């Protein structure tokens, strides 16, 4: 790389937001930039923000697709609230995203896209969006990206559409210059991706280089950033999002359990990628059944579980609603089953591409009858791996459906993941019938301590039995309409779930345990809550954080933890479902709430404000 004559800003961390029309390739641009930063040695966290429509009307705010990456010299837990650098490929992208840029930040615009027509589509009233949006204090780089891309590729014999498609690489090259990043990773990606089309490879690489060179040309007037690599533990790393991590966690569990993995599922945003990834994994022996609907998705999984597979179904909120009756079947039949629910904004179709935590009550109670099952939640894109693994372990070892809650934010967000060694994960051992017990074995006989029945694979000689959705005799499993037997069975099923509290970790307290204020969260909000608590700690403000991953059952010490604090603030992306759940379980404690339902994660800034306000009260 060439020497620099411009001002270089040293930073510990930086947030970059790429935005453009949903056809502008911003997701790819953002991903390539993130991967490059990760390979360079920064810790990263990313979040895509895209519309539900595949191609909303061009140039409108509804069609803006964004991708934010936060990378730093030390660990980063969120994609960042506000961007240091915004790339806006058209006026709509600027209009939609200007409010997410830090005051005085850098904004790169494709000035060629800022014509009268596009300005109007974006809702600007004047021909000067910078003044109109009060961006005078910002560093605006007006790059003629479209024209320079066209100029660069004019003699290559490409059609106009292909030329315009390359302009995201021009923008990417410019951003690489801004952060002084090597382009080798992106170059290799392009060569591999378009291996069958050398002309496209050549065009993309040319535009990428020229974007970088444009930065060199304007450097005299433009500051650039320098972020040192993070001090990272030795090992192998990759970037991974929550959906892939979930799929891989399930595969890991199937290996540890020595069971075939079966997924019965139906495509639904934002869970589809789990189905896609597992469909790809025939190399791992995964059987995937793309069902005709959500109900068939779970019912095939229940059939596979009866036959002896590690069975999974994946879905999002509306799909979970459709699966409700079948989850009840798995509860009463007492079969292992993992239900992954990638939450999105609801009710009904709601906000399919936006994140929310509003399915908690549905997961806990959305079924007929007394129908307890395990509910747990992952709290970062990378720990989706771990919680998918443990969801499967609990399902198999406790003969129960387990609902694993993730959300759109975790599913699509990426982080740098230290590749785990399977040897560090525990064995998964199903309860089987010992040969010496076969003569006296009965299908619904339970372990006296754990209340777990044995799992007999269909096909096992001598142990034929019938199960079903009717209430069954507590020992033989035969149909029983006896009221007292029913009451005992209801209690057994409840006690079986409750017992699991003995096999999950105790609730820990992060941040500053000695504080008047305990912040309580669960699931996908961890990164923001933790960052807010850490930042306050650096400012000398002490806040404790209890972030829950196990919801039913709750960790054994949950009550004791909550009891220690004067003030408790439950923060969640819904109207207060976890707060109400805690009120029901531990009514002797006062809970305050901080809730948000905008289809977006919390921002660290708003959380810090809340915490400080509450401490001052």
């Amino acid at each position, binding site marked *: 790389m060439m020497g620099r004559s411009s001002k270089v800003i040293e930073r510990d961390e930086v947030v970059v937001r790429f935005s453009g029309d949903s056809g502008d390739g911003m997701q790819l641009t953002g991903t390539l930039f993130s991967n490059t930063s990760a390979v360079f040695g920064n810790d990263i966290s990313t979040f895509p923000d895209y519309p539900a429509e595949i191609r909303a009307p061009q140039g409108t705010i509804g069609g803006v697709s964004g991708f934010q990456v936060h990378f730093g010299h030390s660990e980063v837990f969120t994609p960042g609230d506000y961007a240091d650098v915004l790339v806006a490929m058209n006026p709509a992208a600027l209009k939609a995203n200007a409010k997410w840029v830090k005051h005085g930040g850098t904004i790169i615009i494709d000035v060629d896209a800022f014509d009268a027509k596009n300005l109007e589509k974006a809702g600007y009233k004047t021909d000067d969006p910078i003044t109109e949006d009060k961006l005078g204090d910002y560093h605006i780089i007006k790059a003629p990206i479209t024209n320079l891309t066209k100029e660069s590729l004019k003699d290559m014999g490409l059609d106009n559409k292909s030329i315009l498609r390359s302009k995201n690489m021009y923008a990417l090259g410019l951003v690489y210059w801004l952060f002084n990043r090597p382009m080798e990773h992106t170059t290799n990606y392009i060569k591999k991706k378009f291996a069958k089309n050398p002309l496209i490879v050549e065009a993309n690489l040319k535009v990428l280089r020229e974007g970088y060179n444009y930065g060199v040309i304007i450097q005299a007037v433009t500051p650039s950033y320098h972020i040192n690599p993070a001090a990272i533990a030795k090992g192998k790393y990759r970037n991974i999002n929550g959906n892939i991590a979930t799929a891989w966690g399930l595969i890991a569990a199937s290996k540890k359990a020595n069971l075939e993995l079966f997924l019965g599922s139906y495509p639904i945003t934002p869970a589809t990628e789990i189905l896609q990834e597992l469909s790809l994994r025939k190399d791992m022996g995964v059987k995937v059944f793309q069902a*005709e609907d959500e109900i068939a998705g779970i019912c095939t999984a229940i059939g596979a579980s009866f036959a002896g597979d590690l069975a999974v179904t994946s879905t999002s909120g509306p799909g979970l609603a459709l699966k409700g009756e079948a989850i009840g079947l798995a509860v009463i039949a007492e079969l292992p089953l993992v239900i992954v629910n990638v939450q999105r904004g609801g009710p009904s179709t709601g906000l399919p591409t936006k994140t929310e935590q509003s399915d908690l009550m549905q997961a806990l109670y959305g079924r007929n009858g007394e129908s307890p099952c395990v509910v747990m939640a992952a709290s970062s894109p990378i720990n989706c791996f771990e919680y998918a693994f443990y969801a499967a372990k609990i399902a198999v070892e406790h003969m129960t459906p387990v609902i694993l809650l993730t959300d759109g934010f975790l599913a699509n967000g990426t982080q740098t993941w230290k590749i785990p060694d399977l040897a560090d994960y525990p064995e998964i051992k199903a309860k089987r019938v010992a040969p010496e017990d076969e003569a006296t074995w009965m299908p619904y006989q339970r372990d006296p301590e754990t209340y777990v029945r044995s799992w007999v694979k269909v096909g096992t000689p001598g142990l034929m039995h019938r*199960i079903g959705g009717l209430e069954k005799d507590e020992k033989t499993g035969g149909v029983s309409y006896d009221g007292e037997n029913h009451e005992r069975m209801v209690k057994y099923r409840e006690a079986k779930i409750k017992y699991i509290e003995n096999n999950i970790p105790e609730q820990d307290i992060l941040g500053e345990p000695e504080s008047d204020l305990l912040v309580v969260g669960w699931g996908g909000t961890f990164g923001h809550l933790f960052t807010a608590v850490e930042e306050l700690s650096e400012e000398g403000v002490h806040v404790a954080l209890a972030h829950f991953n196990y919801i039913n059952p709750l960790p054994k010490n949950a009550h004791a933890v909550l009891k220690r604090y004067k003030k408790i603030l439950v923060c969640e992306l819904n109207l207060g479902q976890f707060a109400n759940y805690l009120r029901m379980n531990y009514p002797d404690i006062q809970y305050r709430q901080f809730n948000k339902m905008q289809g977006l994660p919390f921002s660290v800034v708003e959380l810090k404000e809340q915490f400080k306000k509450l401490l001052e009260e």
Partner: protein
Amino acid sequence: MSEECELKYTDFKSDLSVRWCAGCGDHAILNAVQKAMANLKVEPHNVAVISGIGCSSRFPYYMNTYGFHTIHGRASAVASGVKVANPNLKVWQITGDGDALAIGGNHFIHLIRRNIDINVILFNNQIYGLTKGQYSPTSKRGFISKTSPYGTVEDPFRPGELTLGARGQFFARTIDKEIKLSIEVMEEAARHKGTSIVEVLQNCVIYNDKTHEAITDKKYKADRTIILQHGEKMIFGVDNDKGLVMDGMDIKTVTIGQDGYTLDDILVHDAYTHHGAMHRKLSNMDFPELPVALGVIRSVKDNVYDVSVEQQLVDVQAKTSITTFEEMVNSGDVWEVE
């Protein structure tokens, strides 16, 4: 599947006492299934019987096999999961006209479309029995029931036509009390690779008694039904003198020796042809215009889903360089921090 072995039908009887109404057609069907299973020589532990909800769906409890009484309409889906997870099992699905064709219609047609190797026994009594007498999707137009006190204003599904419309490759029909025919048909269904649908005209003695009587009664049966056999002439009647011929696009009944028709004019049944047009005509034949077809109407070899799933795993695994979990997580964009 394990080796064939000598089995008696009692090997398939569970020790639970059967709780269908006295005179219900289900008793005879249970008997026929148990006898067919014994003849098939598949050991009880390799058999899974899956049902949905309805009177017929209590069936698994009476079988000394693996059994799963699931939820309303979903037997096809649960059975699909069982079979795909373990294709070595012999999977039977027990269902009724409400379970399979109303609430479970979607799963039923997709099971057939995929051609998963499952034997479906569809009990058709044209009524909801377990909820005590409401019309079903196979009840005839105008049928009077508790929810159609003035007669239904909708036309029924014809299970054979629906099966063929969903790309079904095996369809057969029998009558509950014709145990010998039922056994034959069920054995053939079980030996067929792919989804086989066996419609059993079943009598609900309480809520829809004698609904099939016009054709199943001993007095009329020979003249009002025809048992189709692959490769055989389509002949029926008490005196075996009636036959089926084509009349333009339609099938019609003729009497051999009358109106110039001879035995040579009578159609020969081809159950194995891919072309579904004739199978559809045959399965739709209804009294009083035509005799109701019994026996195996269609039996065609085609790709079988569960076999293809296994094959694809083998094919991919033969080619891939990724064989372990470790190789998977280390594939693609991975870097090392020293």
